[in-house]
């Protein structure tokens, strides 16, 4: 087979069964790979709404992309798909690192984990040899220790994917790590692994990957590589990492601080990518498999009381969630919190999200010292922040147990209007660090995101018009450069819909979304040409983009089976009702009226029903998804 390896590996933990299945040829045309085929698999196995995240029938699917393992630049990403723990809805998360490429070299495009073990296990894969093995010695171990032991058992060149104590303890903020410092972080996928008692998957692969037309493939890869080499966004990502843009975002008064109470922070420098370089903390610029950008960081503290602390990152989101969010404007403070999350297997965004909510709740007197186990919480307090993180990972004490279930459950337990400063929407995922009050396409994209309000199902960075390439993208979508401006509500639906499709195909092929929606070297046109060169399957740009829309529609339909309606497509109370704190949009909010206007246009573009937000039979059939229309009909969920 060309491009794909052609195999899906199934592992049933409860029944101790292992089997493989050929990828149906039709799926390669309709869903492409990775996130796309994952969506089809999750639908087929878990569409029944009785299958909740903790049901043994829930599956977790891990998949590198259709061109992962090749010289396609930055194509080493892996999508992880399951019924999410945090929201109970569709969850796709995505990780970099080197694990996914290794799975593909072992001969598999997808790994589907079914069932639930009654004792801790891990999966060991060496090409055709696949085993479910006892993980007694790994259970309870942190990420670093787990990786070390797996390499001791299976060699330095094996690649590991694992959960830490947080995942074992079914913490909503837990994240699936791979290659140590990379993570499919959001939505509590690690808790699904924890429930299945699956500690880790160790892989070593030695099978070549072939493409149909190596010369054409190399030519398209070169085109992408050279576009990225010249792209100012990509250069900045390499030089300063994802956190290199923080100072600029702060200048726009769009850097959320103190639980979204501020948008601008004075003397923000200590929590920027530039501070890692200047302070001597940055040790190496690191790339995921096959990535020519290398935006990841490896940093350490060499001197003083914190000497010896070393880890991957921190990323933009971590400087936000564990820095500006809890008011820690301190490089080493964030490095400490980041290292702890990476070690215990926590998603820094959600860990920071629940910590900020706890601090504000304590300030307001809604949480007492009894609730915090004696901790005197406050903004900018580093030791207390570290205490929160550790309590969270181990569900320790009243505070740890409260925060471990995430804000959706915690706000219900605590009551007292505490949802008003919980930065999540109706789906219940803690928001990533973006100021949606001043970026309207982001606001819409966050509201409709099937997994909750963050930037990782689509990214509409182009609306800022920060580079000539970004402005070109907006012009291509809207017909006019002037819409490359984030304060407008006009054309936001078009911008979101286009980026949804583009983002989906980017992930389906295995590319990093930075290459197509933050930097601009990979685009629907060259991806279509690359897919054809890799697989031999004829695919135009429009056809490829349509596969993106098809997959987004499956993801939407999956949530419809779980009762999602238009009411789930909203924004956090604070962002809808309280004005931005400062800057050009001081006092401006997202509002229901503004959102409704954009939602109507967005549903129209998708040809979904405005009132319910549900896809119609006609739309589903147009996308070759009649089987989904029939099932939704059975559930009485067709508009």
């Amino acid at each position, binding site marked *: 087979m060309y491009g794909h390896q052609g195999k899906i590996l199934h592992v049933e933990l409860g029944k101790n069964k292992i089997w493989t299945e050929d990828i149906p040829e039709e799926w390669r045309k309709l869903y492409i790979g990775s996130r796309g085929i994952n969506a089809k698999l999750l639908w087929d196995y878990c569409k029944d709404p009785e299958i909740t995240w903790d049901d043994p029938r829930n599956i977790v699917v891990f998949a590198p992309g259709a061109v992962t393992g090749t*010289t396609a*630049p930055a194509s080493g990403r892996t999508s992880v798909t399951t019924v999410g723990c945090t929201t109970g809805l569709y969850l796709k998360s995505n990780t970099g690192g*080197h694990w996914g490429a290794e799975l593909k070299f072992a001969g598999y495009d997808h790994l589907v984990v079914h069932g639930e073990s009654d004792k801790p296990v891990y999966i060991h894969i060496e090409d055709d040899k696949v085993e479910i093995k006892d993980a007694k010695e790994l259970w309870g171990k942190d990420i670093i220790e787990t990786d070390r032991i797996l390499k001791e058992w299976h060699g330095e060149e094996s690649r590991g994917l694992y959960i830490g104590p947080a995942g074992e303890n079914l913490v909503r903020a837990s994240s699936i790590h791979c290659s140590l410092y990379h993570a499919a972080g959001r939505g509590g996928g690690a808790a699904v692994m924890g429930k299945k008692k699956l500690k880790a998957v160790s892989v070593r692969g030695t099978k070549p990957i072939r493409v149909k037309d190596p010369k054409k493939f190399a030519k398209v890869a070169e085109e992408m590589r050279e576009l990225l080499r010249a792209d100012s966004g990509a250069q900045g990502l390499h030089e300063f990492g994802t956190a290199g843009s923080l100072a600029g975002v702060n200048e726009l008064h769009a850097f959320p601080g103190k639980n979204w109470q501020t948008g601008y922070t004075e003397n923000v420098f200590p929590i920027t990518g530039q501070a890692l370089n200047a302070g001597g903390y940055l040790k190496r*610029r690191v790339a995921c498999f096959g*990535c020519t950008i290398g935006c990841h960081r490896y940093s350490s503290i060499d001197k003083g009381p914190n000497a010896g602390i070393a880890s991957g990152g921190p990323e933009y989101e971590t400087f936000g969630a564990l820095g500006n969010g809890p008011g820690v404007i301190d490089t080493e403070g964030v490095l400490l919190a980041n290292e702890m999350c990476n070690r215990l297997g926590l998603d820094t965004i959600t860990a920071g999200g629940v910590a900020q909510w706890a601090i504000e709740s304590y300030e307001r007197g809604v949480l007492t010292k009894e609730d915090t186990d004696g901790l005197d919480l406050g903004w900018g307090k580093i030791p207390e922040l570290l205490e929160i993180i550790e309590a969270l990972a181990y569900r320790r004490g009243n505070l740890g147990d409260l925060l471990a279930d995430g804000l959706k459950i915690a706000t219900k337990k605590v009551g007292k209007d505490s949802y008003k400063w919980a930065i999540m929407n109706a789906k219940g995922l803690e928001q990533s660090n973006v100021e949606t009050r001043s970026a309207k396409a982001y606001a819409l994209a966050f509201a409709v995101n099937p997994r909750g309000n963050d930037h990782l199902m689509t990214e509409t960075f182009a609306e800022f018009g920060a580079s000539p390439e970004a402005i070109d993208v907006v012009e291509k979508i809207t017909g006019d450069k002037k819409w490359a401006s984030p304060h407008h509500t006009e054309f936001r639906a078009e911008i979101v819909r286009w980026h949804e499709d583009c983002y989906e195909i980017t992930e389906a092929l295995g590319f990093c979304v930075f290459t197509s929606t933050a930097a601009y070297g990979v685009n629907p046109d060259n991806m279509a040409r690359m897919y054809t060169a890799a697989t031999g399957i004829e695919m135009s740009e429009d056809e490829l983009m349509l596969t993106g829309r098809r997959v987004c529609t499956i993801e939407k339909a999956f949530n419809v089976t779980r009762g999602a309606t238009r009411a789930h497509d909203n924004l956090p109370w604070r962002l809808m009702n309280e004005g931005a704190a400062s800057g050009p949009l001081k006092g401006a909010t997202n509002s229901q009226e503004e959102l409704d206007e954009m939602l109507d246009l967005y549903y129209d573009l998708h040809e979904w029903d405005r009132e319910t937000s549900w896809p119609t039979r006609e739309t589903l059939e147009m996308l070759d998804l009649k089987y989904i229309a029939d099932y939704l009909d059975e559930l009485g969920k067709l508009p």
Partner: protein
Amino acid sequence: MEKLLLVDMDKCTGCKQCSLACSLIKDDLFDLARGRIKVLKKEDIALGIELLCEQCDAHPCIEACPDEALSRDESTGIITVDAETCTECGSCVEACPYHGIRLHPETNIPIICDLCGGDPYCAKHCVPGAITWEDKTDDLVKEKKKLRSARMAMYRIHKKEGEN
């Protein structure tokens, strides 16, 4: 003008584009084991150590071959393997002080970097600039040796850890 390949570990992000590119240009497919350049990755400290033929002056691989299957171009330093004579014994792999030779996973014949005949394909793929194809000067010859020593020093530490 004569040229040389500079390989700087400190600029390496560990992405493995070089090995992939090498297997593509030589074998028309993607397989890290077929790369004439290998990146030994130490994930915990985010280190990538590049290993490849250095076209060295000592070239002990040639003497190590019991069948005289290896020959060296005196002007470029490039080592060529005569596949007809080679008995796939692996003596050259053992002899290389820079761990730059491996056996092809299918044919078992040693695979050795030939600088793509003067236009190294891997260098075009290395955007961070860890692998560059430079005009040869006395200073750069010294620099090449310095960079090589740094890689070998790390390799020895890494290898030792791997053996524990």
